[in-house]
């Protein structure tokens, strides 16, 4: 399920519920009520059925690409991938 596309917020008119996003030079008006705190212009969000579902993290994306670039190159990549284990996250204290 779920066609969701990354788009950049280009405008947030007064009123608070809506924003204009741009995807490859196409602009769409979407609802931003699912994001807390509300986003700012310039942020990237994931769009689904006219709503912003979540924010897209540039850092996580860059990190992911870095890991992909290292695939098959050394064992350190393996260790880092292991670090995303759910069990560890629970220990790190996220409620």
């Amino acid at each position, binding site marked *: 399920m779920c*066609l969701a596309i990354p788009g950049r917020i280009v405008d947030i008119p007064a009123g608070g519920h809506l924003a204009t996003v741009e995807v490859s030079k196409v602009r769409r008006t979407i609802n931003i009520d699912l994001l807390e705190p509300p986003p700012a212009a310039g942020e990237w969000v994931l769009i689904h059925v006219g709503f912003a579902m979540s924010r897209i993290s540039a850092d996580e994306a860059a990190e992911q690409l870095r890991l992909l670039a290292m695939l098959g190159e050394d064992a350190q990549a393996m260790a880092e991938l292991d670090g995303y284990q759910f069990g560890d996250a629970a220990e790190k204290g996220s409620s």
Partner: protein
Amino acid sequence: MTLLAAAPTTRFADRQIDMAHGAGGKASRRLVEGLIVPALMAASVGDPLSDAAYVTLGDTRLAFTTDSFVVRPLRFAGGSIGDLAVNGTVNDLAAGGAVPIALLCSVIVEAGTPTDILNAEMEAMGAAADRARVRIVGGDTKVVEHGKADGLYITTSGIGRVDPRAALSPASVRPGDRIIVTGPIGDHGITVLLARGDIDLAADLRSDTRSVYPFAAALLDEVAADLRWMRDPTRGGLATSLNELARDCGLSMVLDEERVPVRDEVRGACELLGLDPLHIANEGQLIAVVAGGSADRALESLRRVPGGESAAIVGRVEAAPARTVLAVAAYGGTRVVDMLVGDPLPRIC
């Protein structure tokens, strides 16, 4: 497009006629092959479909074609139904290797339509005919009750003189041939979709409606002996036209996905809506299949035509898999590109 059929044909068995049957895809083909051709052209059952019908009068070969134009809204960025009505038939003649000479135009108007609207479309048609160097020599007008015609339906029939150098047919297509398009795909379909205003999408996009005769002429001038087949892809997009060719010649059309020109705006709209640009309508492009050795010269000749700067070699013909269109991604993944059943529907899943 005028109609002939490709074997084998099965009788058309749907209980009713639906929008899908007019969308130019598989359902349309089934209707044409399974009901219309057997009824009207029994002797032609089994012949491949082509853009125009041909008639020989003495030394002259003539191409005949007809097309109906139905679009909502009537006006959109880059043109209107009047432009489509002229260019569409001119383009069918051009793709058939003919010099367009004259058009007849039949108009069905919904009662209650403001005169300004009809006037604007007649002017648009006149202007488009001038640009395309074709004469509108007659026609017919009817008025139907309010609620019956979406404002306006236009049918144009065209006649042209086939260029003696043209030897176009699916049967002449060979493995190793190259597939060329004259410009970016999907502009028209997305423009009209946005113009309907049902979805809150905005983009700086216009219909590509125009006469493609200059492109056909350039190809005939440059590489006539090596020009196998042409078509102006309309509803159903590049995918539909190439699938029809693949079925008619029994070979495989292999597209290089990266090379197919698509504007950023069309790509963005398609990604947002879950559509494939290969299935989106065009109104001002030509697909040409050219012998491999002449492809570069053919491409250069297209790029010299004003409006042909984005022309590109987008794929090649191969022997197998038979009657199939494939698209190869930059990383090598290969998928089948089929004709749709009806119109492409946006999706959320």
